[in-house]
């Protein structure tokens, strides 16, 4: 925030900010690092006291075991499909709904918005059986549709988009566009979307990661190996008695790598949208 006029103050603030971010980064990244360490060690090194803290030499062995036990790449592919489709669908549906809630006036708007918030308050754990019944009636068992279609329901996404749009897309701009004869959809498409790209990037990151790591629901409806998403497939590495943590964490680690790549890509989009804004202003 500071300007480049008072060098003394800047350096102090700088040191503080860097120190803060460095500590936070170390604490945050540590488990991932450890996951990698354990993914490269044999099982006994993980249970040893104190446990291994530096990478070992079992990287290839552990991952070979993973590939021999489950269809790792097939499951990654399924997960990519599911995560991408849900993310794109959610971005579109939530921004549209959020835009309507933020910028349109219609009867019952507030009540409907509250209704969406209330849906978040119901603990989902008990809904498992009835939800499963619906999926079997639709004949969607072992079908990725069973994950994708309910995945489009995202009350948080609507809430998020509505909050972001209401504070970042000025009413005047919307009105002006309408006076120019824009249809409502064009207002959304041409006026709102360019402004809310950071919000898109954020929601995309959150949603994509969430779907990628979700397993409770996929576990219930995807029973055939060919339909497994990666988290369901990884469950197959857990033997009932003899746990090979090295292998389990190897699978877990490599299943995280594509996520990090996706995150970096979306992050780029995020930054691009900002620099674009900066150039314009």
């Amino acid at each position, binding site marked *: 925030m500071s300007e480049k006029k008072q060098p003394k103050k800047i350096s102090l603030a700088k040191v503080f900010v860097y120190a803060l971010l460095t500590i936070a980064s170390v604490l945050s990244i540590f488990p991932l690092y450890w996951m990698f360490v354990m993914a490269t060690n044999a099982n*006994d090194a*993980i249970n040893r*006291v104190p446990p291994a803290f530096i990478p070992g030499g079992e990287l290839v062995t552990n991952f070979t075991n993973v590939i021999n036990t489950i269809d790792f790449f097939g499951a990654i592919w399924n997960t990519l499909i599911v995560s991408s489709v849900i993310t794109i669908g959610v971005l579109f549906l939530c921004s549209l709904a959020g835009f309507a809630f933020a910028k349109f006036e219609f009867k*019952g708007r507030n009540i*409907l918005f509250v209704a969406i918030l209330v849906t978040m308050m119901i603990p989902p754990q008990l809904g498992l059986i009835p939800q499963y*019944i619906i999926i079997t009636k639709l004949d969607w068992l072992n079908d990725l549709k069973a994950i994708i279609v309910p995945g489009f329901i995202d009350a948080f996404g609507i809430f998020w988009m509505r909050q972001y749009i209401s504070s970042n897309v000025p009413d005047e701009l919307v009105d002006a566009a309408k006076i120019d004869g824009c249809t409502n959809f064009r207002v959304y498409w041409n006026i709102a979307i360019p402004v809310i790209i950071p919000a898109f990037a954020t929601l995309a990151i959150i949603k994509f990661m969430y779907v990628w790591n979700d397993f409770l629901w996929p576990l219930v409806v995807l029973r055939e190996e060919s339909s497994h998403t990666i988290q369901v497939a990884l469950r197959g590495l857990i033997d*009932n008695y003899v746990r090979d943590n090295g292998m389990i964490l190897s699978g877990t680690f490599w299943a995280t790598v594509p996520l990090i790549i996706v995150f970096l890509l979306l992050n780029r989009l995020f930054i691009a949208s900002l620099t674009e804004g900066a150039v314009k202003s």
Partner: protein
Amino acid sequence: MKKWLMLVVFSVLVFALVACSDDSGASGEDDTSTETETETDAGSDDGGEAEEAEPVELDMWVFGSTGYDKLIEEYQTENPHVTITLNEGEMADIHNNLFTSLSASSGAPDIAMIEVSEVARFLNASDSFHNLNDYGAGDVAGNFLDWKWQQAQSVDGSFQVGLPTDIGPTTMFYRTDVIEAAGLPTDPAELAAEIDTWDAYYEAAKTIKAETGKPIADAPELVFNAIRDQQPQQYFNEDDELIIEDTVKEAYDFTTMMIGEDLIGQNALWTPEWGSAMAEGTYATMPGAPGWMLGVVKGNAPDAGGNWSLTNIPEGAGNWGGSFLTVPAESEHPQAAYDFIAWLTAPEQQLKSFNDMGLFPSAPEVYESEEFLATTDEYFSGAPTAEILAEAAKSVVPVYMGVNYATVNAELTTALTNVAVEGADPQEEWDAAVERIEQQLERQ
């Protein structure tokens, strides 16, 4: 089904529109209540014609490392009209999915594996399964250990929910180095003779403590479970009444007494410190360890080969683990499914599973096999593992577990942990556990 869907979509659209033009959001509340009734369609086909060469596809769910894929291939070669799809998963997941499917009367496989700790619960929902007695289970009953067979049977014996696969007869593993340092015999037979009762175990514990400073066992749960599993009745009687005061309180008292004298450590099962202790030899024995524990120890302590051995557990073995294969009622090919699992659990195939994946057979005929009996384990100081486990298997007594076994077990484990880790008063913890158990049972 399609009609039903259209109806829902249509009513939803109407609901959405109505709700929008109005300000209420709570209309249409009762329209779904009729759907909730579970339809049990007992699809018991006549079993005769499945023998024909008509192609049959069977869906099978198992957990753990069974190695059944190879056996399935073998079976399919012999029976070309049968195609079996194997789905492997994690144990709890498989049970949960089975539960959900049976509860919704849809989506269950033709063959489902069920673990012994869950079998009573599913037996309770016998409407959801084919009675294997209808397909010839009576003929193979004699192949299996009685106690194992009865675990998958209704109390009156008329309903057989599953065929036995593997079992987990318990033995006592021990660290030869610690035992030796304490001046006790390290030979399996001699040690078994020395520690032949729990009183002797207690005496040995004092010796070991005095000589080496180490506890005789590190996990309180294992000692408790070992004694509990020797009781002919454990948590419930056959009328599902809670009887723990009369049956396992003694085991609890014995364990907490040993904890009080610092003769047992405080590690909880499956924790990293429990695993690492196997490598370090910080304790002398692991009572109540079944055959599958051999692999656990090797995995956690790959370099401790020759420091471990095993022998009989004092006062007779119990059982920990093992599974059954069941045929859910939804299956349209119960006879074909039964034929396959009867083949899979026959002595010859059980021996193959043992050799392949170490699944300990539930068919005593296998115990006569020379090849089987000759199995020794270098890691376990060359002890005749199969022979010791087979002997244990024969001495297991049948136990009625009851539907709520897991509920009781969780609370008693909590009580033991509190005594071991917190130093809580054993009697107070017991009373508190009993109260919690009764509270939960009352609601069902």
